[in-house]
């Protein structure tokens, strides 16, 4: 094990990355990319970052792969036209040289990073008592750099608003995505009935346990989103119409509660987004539960796309 395994992993990963770039057919490239994402999760485990590995596997490999596969399937007709637009050999050579320079620059930076590396790990460890949580990454996300997490929720929401704004005017308020149908007696529908209940439990468990072990709101939300997507793709349920009030409430629940708790920190704690030590863990969980609802619904809807069917009245 050890270095040999890692070098083998790197070779595989880079091979898949090259395949993603040079493959002729887009569908094949996307399949390569999804596999790359999953292998990358292994790399993250070797880098002692299990939270990130979970996120990479779920979002980077899983969700992004699904999104791009769907798009590649829909865009198959444009493949032929694209072949005519490929830049000439000289252009590609110059691009390769310049990209290689970028790689060289980054590689040089890696090799010449200072040793011992500056780190905030001791500071994070020293201040962990402020939230009584054992998972340092959760501490950073929810306490030390809570502003970034809050902003990021807003980014997610705005991306969704952007996606929705692409709908034709007459279909506004309707259901996102096409109506999926699957054979009700088939294997897919069976899986879609079988997997979601344990999937949801696992998702919530990952959140619950993230206080002291690897896990977190994003990973949990992604699993819940995946379960929801499974149900929708098997045709067991339809996407909700975008004008439904309850849906909109679910989409802002996370950031709104986060904002309110943050403002509450002004009175109970000593600053915006501060938590009083006695209630820190409870407050963080109180934020995280609406947050996984929002994340799950947002990610699912981002995957589904803009409204494509009129709202049934």
């Amino acid at each position: 094990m050890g270095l040999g395994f890692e070098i083998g992993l790197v070779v595989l990963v880079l091979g898949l990355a090259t395949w993603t770039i040079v493959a002729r057919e887009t569908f094949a490239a996307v399949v390569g990319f999804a596999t790359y994402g999953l292998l990358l999760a292994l790399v993250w485990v070797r880098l002692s970052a299990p939270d990130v590995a979970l996120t990479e596997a779920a979002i980077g490999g899983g969700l992004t792969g699904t999104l791009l596969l769907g798009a590649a399937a829909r865009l198959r007709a444009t493949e032929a036209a694209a072949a005519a637009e490929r830049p000439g050999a000289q252009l590609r050579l110059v691009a390769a040289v310049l990209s290689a320079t970028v790689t060289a620059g980054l590689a040089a930076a890696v090799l010449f990073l200072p040793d011992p590396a500056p780190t905030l790990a001791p500071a994070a460890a020293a201040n962990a008592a402020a939230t009584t949580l054992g998972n340092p990454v959760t501490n950073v996300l929810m306490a030390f750099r809570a502003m970034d997490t809050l902003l990021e929720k807003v980014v997610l929401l705005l991306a969704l608003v952007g996606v929705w704004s692409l709908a034709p005017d007459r279909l506004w308020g309707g259901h996102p995505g096409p109506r999926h149908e699957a054979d009700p007696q088939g294997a897919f529908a069976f899986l879609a009935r079988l997997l979601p209940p344990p999937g949801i439990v696992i998702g919530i468990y990952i959140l619950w346990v993230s206080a002291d072990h690897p896990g977190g709101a994003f990973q949990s939300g992604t699993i819940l989103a995946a379960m929801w997507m499974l149900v929708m793709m098997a045709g067991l349920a339809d996407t909700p119409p975008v004008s439904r009030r309850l849906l909109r409430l679910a989409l802002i629940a996370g950031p709104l509660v986060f904002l309110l708790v943050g403002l509450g920190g002004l009175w109970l704690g000593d600053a915006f987004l501060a938590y009083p030590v006695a209630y820190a863990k409870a407050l963080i969980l109180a934020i995280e539960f609406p947050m996984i609802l929002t994340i799950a619904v947002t990610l699912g809807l981002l995957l589904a796309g803009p409204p494509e069917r009129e709202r049934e009245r």
Partner: protein
Amino acid sequence: MSTATVFGLCAAVAAGLGTYGLITNPQPLRKILAFNLLGSGVFLFFGVVARRGAAAGFGGDPVPQALVITGMVVAFSATALAVALLLRLFQATGSATLRPDAPASADSNRTDA
């Protein structure tokens, strides 16, 4: 050569490949794919920095790890927005290209507005 260095070089190559793909491949979907590759390379680089910062009983510096998680979610929303735009463009024009002189293109100075 330590773990971190090996993966650091891997990150650099992935970033270079992503850059190359983003610039040369004319199809927007392949550009989005290359952007994701480039992004994953940069995140991996951040992970290497985190691994080198292992201290105080942690396997890695938790701050960069948290930043990577945030970054990954942002990258996914970017991909989702880009894909939705691309699909809508395809729906509206029947072709998926970024070339400005394509038939339904923008900034022509045709005198019929």
